[in-house]
């Protein structure tokens, strides 16, 4: 498949994530949309990794070009997991105090 398809797919996923973050009011769903954004990036990185490997393979049969893209994906997954643990802890802390995860409820700081 041409690389463009992957780019379109991951851009679509990424945009869904962004729209979700901007419009949804439930903290958990906003959080899921952020995860969707990160996973769109993962998909794109793997696709690019394969693409760069393919082009390098044409000149050198034993090339490892493009391997760093896939390595990056593992780092993103690890960091996302760390972020999830902190984020969920913050949401639980908020839920304990106001018994809701609606982010509109939190508007005290504006004035």
């Amino acid at each position, binding site marked *: 498949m041409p690389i463009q398809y992957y780019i379109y797919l991951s851009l679509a996923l*990424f945009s869904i994530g962004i729209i979700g973050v901007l419009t949804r009011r439930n903290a958990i769903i906003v959080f899921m949309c952020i995860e969707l954004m990160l996973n769109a*990036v993962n998909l794109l990185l793997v696709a690019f990794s394969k693409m760069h490997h393919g082009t390098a393979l044409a000149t050198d049969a034993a090339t490892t*070009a493009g391997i760093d893209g896939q*390595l990056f994906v593992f780092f*993103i997954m690890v960091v996302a997991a760390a972020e999830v643990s*902190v984020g969920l802890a913050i949401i639980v*802390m908020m839920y304990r105090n106001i018994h809701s995860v609606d982010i509109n409820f939190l508007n*005290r700081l504006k004035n």
Partner: protein
Amino acid sequence: MNAIILSALLGVVMMFSGILTKNKSVLKYIAAVGLLLLIAFNVMDTYAIFKFDIDSRGLLSFGKFGLYFNTLAFAATFIYVLLSGSDIEKAGINVAEYFALIFFVLCGLSILSGFNGMLMLFLGIEILSIPLYILTGSDKRNLKSNEAALKYFLMGSFTTGIMLMGIAFFYGATGSFTLNALPVIPTTGMINPSFLHVGGLLLLFVAMSFKVSAAPFHFWTPDVYDGAPSVFTSFMATIVKAAGFIAFIRLFQTQAVALGPTWKIILSIVIILTLLIGNITAVFQQSVKRMLAYSSIAQAGFMLFALFSSNDLAMEGILLYSVAYSLATIGIFAVLIKMNDYTFDGFNGLAKSNPVLAFTTTIFLLSLAGIPLTAGFFAKYYMLASVIKEGGSLWLVIVALFFAAVSVYYYFRVIQAMYFKDGDAGTAPISGVFKLSLVLLAALVIVLGIFPSIILNGFYF
């Protein structure tokens, strides 16, 4: 590499010292000793006396500039811990963990001052940010702290998503994560301006602007800085922000060529917006803490000049600016934490009830406003001089000077409240040691204002 390894280790040490000792006030001394160790090992690294090196395969490269920035940041943290350490103890029950998180932030900072590829940029930013989300929410029962933590977290991870998309585009265009990778046409050696590369750089620019709170991506800053416990706002607004700028400059020093002349246009729009929104909104604030949050946006506008001109004067300037701005802000926040009332009226008559506090606060405010004989003056001078040296953007300097004049207004409102208004500014009990360290910090601000070469010489020797 010394700094990265030692700061991570010290974070673990702090966590364990929380189990081993029940006495909370010991912890800040352990942290202070740890910071001194960190400074010592980082200086040894700078002068190649003792180097703990791991072959990072080009992911990290430590130059003199980055290492020297580390030293300055650690020294500023040391001053912060000495001055506000006893207030960190009051922020919550898990004191040891707060110090541990501060060390982890410093680990992220030392990665950011030496990254050589997008992987380390990403990891550095995350190691810097994730502990800060926790510190922001450390006041668990306080709804404002909760709100600030949630906002900071959602905005921060959203930005991370944007940054990663930028990195993915960059990788797609160049086939590499290294900092100086440019998509060149092999036959001519010219830069191939591909959509992916330019789009990736723009996404990275947006993400980094978020992190350093440059307008129009600044909207989270006032809420987060206002809601977070004041001790941690002090840390966030100073040392962490300076680290963000170092990363920003490092990233775009090599990559800005790919954007061509558009780069300077985009950047000058961002600078002017940041100066405008930061300064004008700060004028209308009623709370000093919120005013300082907006003033930190305005100061970010000045720090962006280093990115704009990125010549040798700018590199000296950003170091000087980080130090001057950090010291003054740490000082003001240390005083602010002691106040009972955070509004401007809360400062009424402080000069009568507590002249030492009022006098030192005045010096810090003068330094932030950039009045001569304080460190802030030369910091602003170097920034503007670097733009003039670069040439062609004199109008930008004039705009900056105008906004610097605006900033004098809201800084002087605090001074006016302290000296010329009657009232009973209530403060928490203030120890003699605290007063002495405030006076020493104010003296340091003035000494740096007269001899800025103290900072700059360290860069060359």
